[in-house]
């Protein structure tokens, strides 16, 4: 994957193989169960139940919005050009931030499906069931790093 900045846009070029992997990966969104995250770990908050529900609603709503935005992106030929030789993706900074969140959702969801292992890089648990999750986790990490590099210019 090659990335370049063109004024305020980020242009990502992928070869055919990378394009297929990228599309396969995005098709996995949303990945895993809705995260059950706590607003607080140790404190009793005022109106804790309502506050917790608000967090869960916000995260669920974000997933719904992301799912819709992802469909829109894939149909937007100006931004998402599938070519015979690969894929050209033209993203605004906001698009890129959003795509990072989507990719990280896939990464975290895959990790959760693996049982949230302390060392996700261990190969001990390599089975037919775990391979797709390890693949999704590593591939999303790969694309995340490329987008981050494009954003930060590092």
């Amino acid at each position: 994957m090659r990335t370049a900045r063109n004024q305020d846009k980020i242009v990502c070029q992928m070869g055919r193989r990378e394009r297929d992997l990228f599309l396969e990966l995005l098709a996995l969104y949303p990945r895993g169960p809705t995260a059950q995250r706590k607003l607080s770990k140790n404190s009793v908050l005022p109106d804790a139940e309502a506050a917790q529900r608000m967090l869960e609603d916000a995260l669920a709503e974000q997933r719904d919005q992301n799912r819709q935005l992802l469909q829109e992106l894939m149909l937007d030929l100006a931004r998402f050009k599938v070519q015979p030789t690969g894929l050209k993706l033209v993203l605004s900074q906001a698009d890129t931030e959003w795509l990072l969140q989507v990719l990280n959702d896939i990464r975290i969801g895959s990790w959760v499906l693996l049982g949230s292992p302390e060392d996700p890089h261990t190969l001990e648990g390599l089975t037919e069931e775990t391979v797709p999750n390890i693949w999704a986790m590593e591939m999303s990490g790969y694309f995340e790093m490329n987008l981050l590099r494009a954003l930060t210019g590092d």
Partner: protein
Amino acid sequence: MAETVTPDLLPAAAPVEEQQDKPESDLEPGFLVICWNDPVNLMDYVTHVFQVVFGWPKKKAEFHMLQVHEQGKSVLARESMEKAEHYVHQLQKYHLHATMERDE
């Protein structure tokens, strides 16, 4: 952790009268926004999220990312309940393991 816990809100040299004039809410214990370590979020990603959510320069974001990585957690901010809640929502939308805790 000291860097963020020791806030600019109450400088040691601030005159007593100034503190008494502050609204009561400023003197009440606030809420700490804490980010906890996890083995899956990429270090560069965490740094980037801190920059976006808090508007921090890269150096400060990296400092807190390393604190999370090496010490298991980092206190990112001390805020009112509403603001702390806002930050936790933002960080969790990026899938960081963040919570708010009473500053007691």
